[in-house]
């Protein structure tokens, strides 16, 4: 097997209780027998643990926060590219995607490739437009975007309590009454702005599926997982791959209808009442548990690198069922010199030496 010498940059190096996907993406790429190259970590915080973990990043650069806009991002990447020429960038956080899409043409001219979702795909997966997926034949909970508190007291005309109250970017709560809904409306709108999204509450078993679409309607691979251990915030701390043929069909159908391009995480609920599969959310990037795809025999992060490099990638063999992951939380010891370097210069070159 001929190995590929590539220089790949990956973002999202926080590995806290609610980790970013970056470290898992890097571990997956490094596990590919085809990869032989260097990996540069793009971090937002000097204390992102992925900066310091051994065997993860060859180089690390601090990045401007997404709120600073795409111009700052492009300038920083140009600076990095002049020091460490990059072949591929894999942004792993939702909040970065918009800026990366804006500069993707410039990156391409610089010879830096990526495999991002389409602008249309990103728009459709947003919570505000999510209900429109039903017009495409995708089963989603009934939903509505509201901008005023008075709308809450009209909800019982169209919704049955409990309902989900969701921020347009993050956070979701179950409200069992209009009064409770009003409280959550205040809390969410103060944090994430308007509109706030009301969604039908579907009772059933929740599953997560990591998938990779080729952008033409084809599914390169999919790893369905049931969470077996949760954090207090309901994030996966452990999970196991499953094989539900009806759900697999549903996933293939969603990717085809959306012509999804790139990685994503689908949150799906199998209704206890009807047995139907409801698409609850699409996260437009790898989940933090994406290293499970390597364990289950489908290295989706590496397949993404190949797609970014315009290499043909055929559909991967079905994933291995019953593959389990469990996270852990242990203390690592590091010299202060690395922290000092990243704090003062915003970069660590030759980090793994």
């Amino acid at each position, binding site marked *: 097997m001929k190995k590929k010498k590539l220089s790949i940059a990956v973002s999202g190096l926080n590995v806290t209780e609610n980790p970013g996907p970056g470290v898992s993406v890097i571990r997956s790429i490094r596990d590919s027998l085809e990869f032989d190259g260097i990996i540069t970590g793009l971090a937002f915080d000097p204390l992102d643990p992925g900066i310091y973990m051994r065997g993860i990043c060859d180089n690390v650069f601090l990045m401007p926060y997404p709120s600073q806009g795409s111009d700052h991002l492009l300038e920083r990447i140009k600076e990095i590219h002049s020091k460490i020429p990059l072949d591929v960038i894999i942004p792993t956080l939702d909040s970065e995607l918009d800026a990366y899409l804006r500069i993707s043409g410039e990156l391409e001219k610089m010879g830096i490739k990526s495999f991002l979702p389409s602008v249309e795909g990103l728009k459709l997966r947003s919570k505000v437009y999510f209900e429109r997926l039903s017009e495409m034949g995708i089963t989603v909970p009934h939903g509505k975007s509201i901008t005023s508190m008075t709308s809450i007291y009209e909800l019982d005309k169209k919704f049955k309590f409990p309902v989900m109250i969701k921020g347009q970017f993050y956070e979701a709560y179950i409200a069992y009454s209009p009064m409770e809904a009003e409280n959550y409306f205040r809390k969410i709108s103060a944090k994430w702005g308007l509109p706030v999204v009301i969604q039908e509450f579907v009772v059933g*078993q929740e*599953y997560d599926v990591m998938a990779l679409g080729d952008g033409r309607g084809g599914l390169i691979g999919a790893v369905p*997982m*049931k969470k*077996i251990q949760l954090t207090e915030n309901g994030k996966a701390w452990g*999970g*196991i*791959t*499953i*094989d*539900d043929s009806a759900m697999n069909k549903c996933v293939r159908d969603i990717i085809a209808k959306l012509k999804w391009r790139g990685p994503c995480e689908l949150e799906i609920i199998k209704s206890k009442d009807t047995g139907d599969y409801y698409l609850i959310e699409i996260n437009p990037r790898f989940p933090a548990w994406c290293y499970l795809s390597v364990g289950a025999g489908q290295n989706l992060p590496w397949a993404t690198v190949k797609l970014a490099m315009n290499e043909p990638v055929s559909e991967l063999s079905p994933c291995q*069922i*019953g593959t389990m992951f469990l996270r852990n939380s242990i203390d690592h010891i590091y010299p202060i010199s690395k922290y000092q370097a990243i704090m003062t210069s915003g970069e660590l070159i030759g980090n793994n030496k």
Partner: protein
Amino acid sequence: MAKHSLSHLALSDEGFLFDPTSGHTYTLNSVGTFILKKMIEEYSFDQIIAAMIEEYDSSEDILTRDLEQFFHFLSEQGIIA
């Protein structure tokens, strides 16, 4: 009794059961493991009772009641229809 095949279930000799469709895991006692193995082998209700009578020192009435209760449990868990 389950109409569909249960051959997809992963059941160890020690009674660890993994349902790959739902992702749920269970620990069965030796009687539950015995019964479910027979179900996976597509034994009928009567055939399972006959196998239990041979295996366990108990009356047919008690074993029938136990088997019905176990079916109820499996149904509640969505393992059988």
